[in-house]
Structures are given as structure tokens and as C-alpha cells.
């Protein structure tokens, strides 16, 4: 069995992790600079594609070409998201089916954007292991529907990853905690991330993690907190400057740059909490409590039956969230594991189970939404109720209503409402090749199977003949196989161009960093150097500047390394001075009775 990594493809940040064979514990794979979180941001520039921190840095400068929070658009249609589009600085094209974005002069779908993030994580893992990585477990919010799960799987395929399992984020988190022997009993996992909210109730016993019920909101998270704060800041600006500002921020929304500055400021303000901010966030936090109560009811439990509560997701750092959760369940929640990393760690554990490396743990998850078919009058007939343990299947008989009919239609929906039109349309299936017979004679048995990924598979069989009936699937908000194939090919073409562009950007960045350091050191300590040495450094700086202006990567890298070499002595001098300075500071701190190591 080849290596399988665990990936948390988050709204705000993404991570890749694996289980270390020696310790048996999951660990996050950092990038070359030691960063563990990869911001789920993709920038489309004329020079190529930027991912993560680099894309984040250009967010304020190139808002229209920088895509963030794309997870909110996965598996959705334009109709679903049109109300929140004005908050996004990038352009989303109206149309049927899958959402399409117009960025950097090209048209992309959310799975393609997510694929860029996944490919970056794949490369990060490959650099770490020094070998190709082709398989991954990828996490999704537990409340994701079939289309959203399928879109995530498609993203993997486009990135060249075989997504061997889609795992629900809260249950993945419980696996990570389970490994730390949190104990047995009934656990509630409250997962409030950047864009989505999930609650899952599990029974943990003898290594089996049995999900009893799950609920949530795939459109509620830290992004909404930021948005509320952003609007509040706008009002504040209006009050201060006595300026007419549209509350719906249409004007400012057009000014993408200002909006991004504001969004980042809101994100920062959220972290420095105040009572005023709590008042603003209260309605959003309250919205998480309804799903919690519903999940408890579905599990047939009351809050006092819950033995432990686990917090997952960066937004659970907000003290108000912790208080509300504690009030609801009547016990202090756990948050020992880093809420930003715990899902990726759990994904790594699930990957290790699938690879055969862990044999005593098993996750039994459920389908979050009821699956049904539309019947006469647009009423839904439920085939698989929500919170059914997966994999699961249901059989249903279909027949014809007109003499000689050879095709039967089925409309499959997901959701809890009585009318088909109020639920999520998954797909229309056409059963073809039925032998012409009087109405009602053909008996076609259709099996609806939800696999361990929570993804629907449909099979049909004509009962009299036992012949498999052919099915044509028309996903309502999904990509066809042909679409995905095309995107896989395109991604290779782009990938090559992208890699070239990215490597150039990277060496330029490296050159900039060195230049900045050298110039500062030169200002501070240049006078202490001999004339000879000063001249050599000045020449090396000039040479690097010339190289940096060009496109030759190797030349930039060589000039950078020459400048590094020329400044070795200077760097040593600076280091000594810094050490001496640090010691002096420490002494001063000690004298004044302050700990120098403690932050703030």
C-alpha cells in the first residue's frame, strides 16, 4: 500500500499531515519556512498562479484576481451564492450549474481553485518525503451534501490526487483526540471553522467511533464574524467622517482594495475581543445552538448525557463561543489540541487506518441529510433518513406510466423538507433501454447506495430479465466526468507555466529578503568594515539588482548566493552585536523584575 496523507482543505487555511511510523502519532508537514498553515488563497497574476501566503499578500493589491474562501462556493450554483457575491471582490459569472469565477483573464470553477491549494500541499508532502504522494484522505464539513463532497473529490482528481476517502471534519477531530486517549463515552464535537459549522455527537467505545447524529450549517463561520465586524467598522468610519456611506457597502464593495483592507482589519479586531464585539457576534453564535439541540434530539440524548465536549476550528477561540457551548452542555469544553490542526491530524489517522497501519480504530459515520426522490405532486419520498450509518443502501421499484415507455426519470434530492423544490437537487437520473411493454409492467429495481464517503451511487436492474439498466446521470451542480478530465489536462499545462512563474517569484523574493537585510546591516555596521570589503559588498548588491530585473532564475540565485558570501563577515559582526544586545536587555529586564521570555 502506498503512502496516504491526510489533508484538511479549509475555508481559511489548509494543512497536510501524516502519521509518523516511529511514534505512531500524526504530525503536520510544514513548508520549507516552517509554516504549517497554508492560507487557502489563490492569486491569479499575469506571471502565473500564487498560492497561500504569497497570494494573501497580494489580496489588498489585486482583489479582483485573488480568490479566498472558495470552499463556500464548492458544489453550489449561482442562485445559491448570489446574495453574498457582493462581499467577494472577485467576479462570479451568472449561469446554470456549477459556479464559475472570472479571474486573471481566465474562467475557473471552485474545484479547480481548490485543486491549486491541494497541489501545493501535495508538493509540500512530496518535498518532505522525497517521493511522489498520490493518495489522500481529504476532510469536509459533516453537513456537506453530495454535490459538495463530489466537488471536493473532483478537486483532488484535478490536483493529481486519488482521494481515497472523504472524512467529516468533526469526526476526524474525534479520531485525533481518540488517539490521545481522551476516554470512552459520548462526545460532542463542536466545529466552527472559517466558513462552516458542524456539530457531531459520537459514542466512543472499544476503539469504535460511532457517530450518533450530526447537524450544522455550511454557511456559518468566522467569515461571517468578519463580515459583521466589517459592517460595524464601516458605520464607525461613517460616524467619524460624517460621510454618506451606503450601509450595504455597495460603493466600498466596488473599491475592492479598501474592502480587503477593511476585511483584514476586521479579522484583526475579532481577535482583540471586546464586549461591543460580543454584542455584534451574539446572533451568529446563537445560530449554532439550534443545530446542537437538533443533533441531541436526533441522537435521543439530552445535554447531560454528553460526557465530553471538544472544540474544533479557529473560530472556537472566540471566548463568547466557548461560553455558549459550556452553557449548553453544562461542562467545560476540551481544546488541548490546536483547533487549527486537529482536523488534519485526524485525517492523517484515518489515512493510516486505510493504509492498514492502525487496526484497532474504526470510524462509523452517518449521512447528514435525508436522501429522497421526487414523487407525484413534487412531494419527497425519503429513501435514506439523515443520520443513517454509512455505507447504507435502499432499494426502490420503478415502473412505467405509459404503454411502450422506454425511459424512466428520477429526480434525487437531499434535505429535510417535504417538497422537492425546497430541498437540494442532486441529480436527475434517466433509466434507459426499457423494453416497450404495457404501462406498469416493467419492474426496475433501483439501488441507492451511499458509500463511506457520503457520496451517492445508483444502480438499476430490470427485475424480470435481471438485466442491468443503463443510467444517465445529470448532476445539478456537479462537473461531468468529461469536465473533470479536461480540467486535469489543463491543470498540467497551467501547472508547468505556474511552476516556472512561481520559482521565479520565489528566487526574487529570496533576493529581496537578502537585499533588505544587507542594506540594513550596512547602514548600521558598514562603517566598521574595511574599504575593500565595503566595495565588494556594494558591487555584489549592484550585481544582484541587475539580475533581479531580469527573468533568469539561475542568475538571480547565483548573485544572491554571491552577495551572501560577500557579507559573511558583516553577518557575523551583526550576530555578535545582536547577542550582546539581547544579553544586555535580559540583564536590564531582570534588574527591573520582569521576565524577558514571557510574551506581553
Amino acid at each position, binding site marked *: *500500500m502506498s503512502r496516504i496523507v491526510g489533508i484538511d482543505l479549509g475555508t481559511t487555511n489548509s494543512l497536510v499531515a501524516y502519521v509518523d511510523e516511529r511514534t505512531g502519532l500524526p504530525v503536520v508537514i510544514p513548508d520549507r519556512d516552517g509554516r504549517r498553515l497554508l492560507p487557502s488563497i489563490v492569486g491569479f497574476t499575469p506571471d502565473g498562479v500564487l498560492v497561500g501566503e504569497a497570494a494573501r499578500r497580494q489580496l489588498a493589491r489585486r482583489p479582483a484576481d485573488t480568490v479566498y474562501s472558495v470552499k463556500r462556493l464548492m458544489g453550489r450554483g449561482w442562485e445559491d451564492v448570489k446574495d453574498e457575491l457582493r462581499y467577494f471582490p472577485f467576479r462570479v459569472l451568472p449561469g446554470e450549474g456549477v459556479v464559475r469565477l472570472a479571474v486573471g483573464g481566465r474562467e475557473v470553477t471552485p474545484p479547480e481553485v481548490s485543486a491549486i491549494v491541494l497541489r501545493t500541499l501535495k508538493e509540500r508532502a512530496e518535498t518532505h518525503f522525497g517521493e511522489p504522494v498520490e493518495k489522500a484522505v481529504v476532510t469536509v464539513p459533516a453537513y456537506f451534501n453530495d454535490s459538495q463532497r463530489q466537488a471536493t473529490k473532483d478537486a483532488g482528481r484535478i490536483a493529481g490526487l486519488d482521494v*481515497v*476517502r472523504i472524512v467529516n471534519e468533526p469526526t476526524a477531530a474525534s479520531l485525533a483526540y481518540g488517539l490521545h486517549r481522551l476516554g470512552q463515552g459520548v462526545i460532542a464535537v463542536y466545529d466552527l471553522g472559517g466558513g462552516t459549522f458542524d456539530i457531531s455527537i459520537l459514542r466512543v*467505545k*472499544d476503539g*469504535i467511533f*460511532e457517530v450518533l447524529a450530526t447537524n450544522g450549517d455550511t454557511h456559518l463561520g468566522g467569515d461571517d464574524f468578519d463580515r459583521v465586524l466589517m459592517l460595524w467598522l464601516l458605520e464607525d468610519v461613517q460616524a467619524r467622517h460624517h460621510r454618506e456611506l451606503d450601509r450595504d457597502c455597495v460603493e466600498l464593495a466596488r473599491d475592492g482594495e479598501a474592502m480587503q483592507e477593511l476585511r483584514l482589519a476586521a479579522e484583526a479586531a475579532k481577535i482583540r475581543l471586546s464586549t461591543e464585539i460580543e454584542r455584534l457576534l451574539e446572533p451568529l453564535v446563537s445560530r449554532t445552538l*439550534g443545530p446542537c439541540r*437538533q443533533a441531541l*434530539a*436526533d441522537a435521543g440524548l439530552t445535554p447531560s448525557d454528553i460526557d465530553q465536549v471538544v472544540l474544533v476550528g479557529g473560530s472556537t477561540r472566540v471566548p463568547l463561543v466557548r461560553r455558549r457551548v459550556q452553557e449548553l452542555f453544562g461542562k467545560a469544553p476540551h481544546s488541548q489540541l490546536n483547533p487549527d490542526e486537529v482536523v488534519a491530524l485526524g485525517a492523517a489517522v484515518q489515512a493510516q*487506518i*486505510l*493504509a*492498514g497501519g492502525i*487496526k484497532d480504530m*474504526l*470510524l*462509523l459515520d452517518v449521512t447528514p441529510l*435525508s436522501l429522497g426522490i421526487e414523487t407525484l405532486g413534487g412531494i*419527497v419520498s*425519503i*429513501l435514506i*433518513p*439523515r*443520520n*443513517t*450509518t*454509512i*455505507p*447504507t*443502501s*435502499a*432499494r*426502490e*421499484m420503478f415502473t412505467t406510466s405509459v404503454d411502450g415507455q422506454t425511459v424512466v426519470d428520477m429526480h434525487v434530492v437531499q434535505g*429535510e*423538507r*417535504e417538497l422537492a423544490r*425546497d430541498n437540494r437537487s442532486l441529480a436527475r437520473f434517466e433509466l434507459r433501454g426499457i423494453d416497450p411493454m404495457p404501462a406498469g409492467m416493467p419492474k426496475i429495481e433501483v439501488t441507492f*447506495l451511499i*458509500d*463511506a464517503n457520503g457520496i451517492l451511487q445508483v444502480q438499476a436492474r430490470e427485475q424480470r430479465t435481471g438485466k442491468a439498466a443503463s443510467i444517465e446521470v445529470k448532476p445539478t451542480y456537479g462537473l461531468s466526468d468529461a469536465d473533470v478530465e479536461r480540467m486535469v489536462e489543463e491543470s498540467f499545462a497551467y501547472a508547468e507555466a505556474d511552476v516556472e512563474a512561481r520559482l521565479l517569484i520565489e528566487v526574487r523574493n529570496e533576493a529581496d529578503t537578502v537585499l533588505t537585510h544587507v542594506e540594513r546591516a550596512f547602514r548600521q555596521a558598514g562603517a566598521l568594515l574595511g574599504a575593500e570589503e565595503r566595495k565588494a559588498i556594494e558591487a555584489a548588491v549592484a550585481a544582484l539588482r541587475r539580475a533581479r530585473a531580469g527573468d533568469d532564475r539561475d542568475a538571480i540565485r547565483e548573485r544572491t548566493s554571491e552577495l551572501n558570501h560577500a557579507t559573511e563577515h558583516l553577518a557575523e559582526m551583526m550576530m555578535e552585536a545582536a547577542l550582546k544586545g539581547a544579553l544586555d536587555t535580559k540583564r536590564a529586564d531582570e534588574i527591573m523584575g520582569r521576565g524577558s521570555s514571557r510574551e506581553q
Partner: protein
Amino acid sequence: MSDFFEVFGLERRLAIDVAALQRRFYELSRRWHPDFHQAAAPAEQARALEESARVNAAYRALRDPLARVEYLIRLEEGRATREGAVVNPKAPPALLAEMFEIQEALEARGDSLDDGTRATLTVQRDALRARMAEAEAQIAGPLSRAWDAAAAADRPAALAALKDALATRAYLRTVIDDLANALGEGTEETHVANRRD
């Protein structure tokens, strides 16, 4: 194909040791869950998927005493698929007058309830809830035991008694849901899946 009782190696009886059922469910899950067959040949993977789906369906049907009775009725009546309801809601004759009264109050209420009506409806709803709990206890208790103890010839009668009790319970459930809705206690969406009828 084996029935759900046979999946767990059980006789066709309504009295089930739920703790033992759970242990057996975990054992069978470890045996068949696709997680443990990831590296197997495609045919074996397909088998694991099918078996595991069957184990899950069997556990769901048997772990809850009422779902178990519904499954038994299907099995005894020879209905393989879960098409259609096992029973149709039926008002218990003893309650007919009371039910009409409630329905009338619900229809006449218009958009808002005055405090008096609200209080009356709340009392009625609580009484119906108690009655439904009683019906459930009857089904899971004496009526289930009666079917288990009945000789082959008496089983149809015991089954009919179970069906009757289920129909009453389904009816109570519908009225309680209507009352809860009228009192504004229903969630913003109707959870079809929640209904056992």
C-alpha cells in the same frame, strides 16, 4: 438473502439484548467496513461495501424497539423493500371526540393564538404526549412479549394488535406535531425524517 435478525445470528423475536446487539454490530463492522478492505481486489471491495451496508441497515432496524416492530411486520407480511408505510395513522375510537375538538380549535385559530387557547392547547399537547409514551410502552412491552410468546396459530392476532397500536401512535404523533406547530414550537423546517409514522 438472510433477514436482519439472521444478520446478527438472532431468532425472530422482539425481545433483544440491546447491549449484546451493539457488541455484535461492532464486531460485524470490524469484519466488513470498507476501511479494512481498501487494498483488496475490486470484487472483494464491492462485497465489503454491500455487507457493511446490510449490517448498518440491520442494526438501524433492530436497535430501536418501535423500528424493530415495524421491521417485523414487514418481514411477516413478506414486503422486502421499505416502500410505503407499515401502518396508516388511525384515531383511537376512545379519543375521537377529543381529537375533533383539538382539530376544530386548530382550524379556528387564525394567525395568532390568544393566551387562553394557547394554555388549553399546551395542556392538551402534554396530555397527548403522555398518551403517546404510554402507547410506545405498550408496544415495546406487553404487546411485543405477547408476540414472542404466541404459538404459531396465534401470531397473526398478536401481529394485528401490534399494528393497531402502531397506527394509534402514528396518529397521536401527527396531532402532537400539528399542535406543536400551532404553538410555534416547530422548527422552521419540517423534519420528515424525524417522523416514525
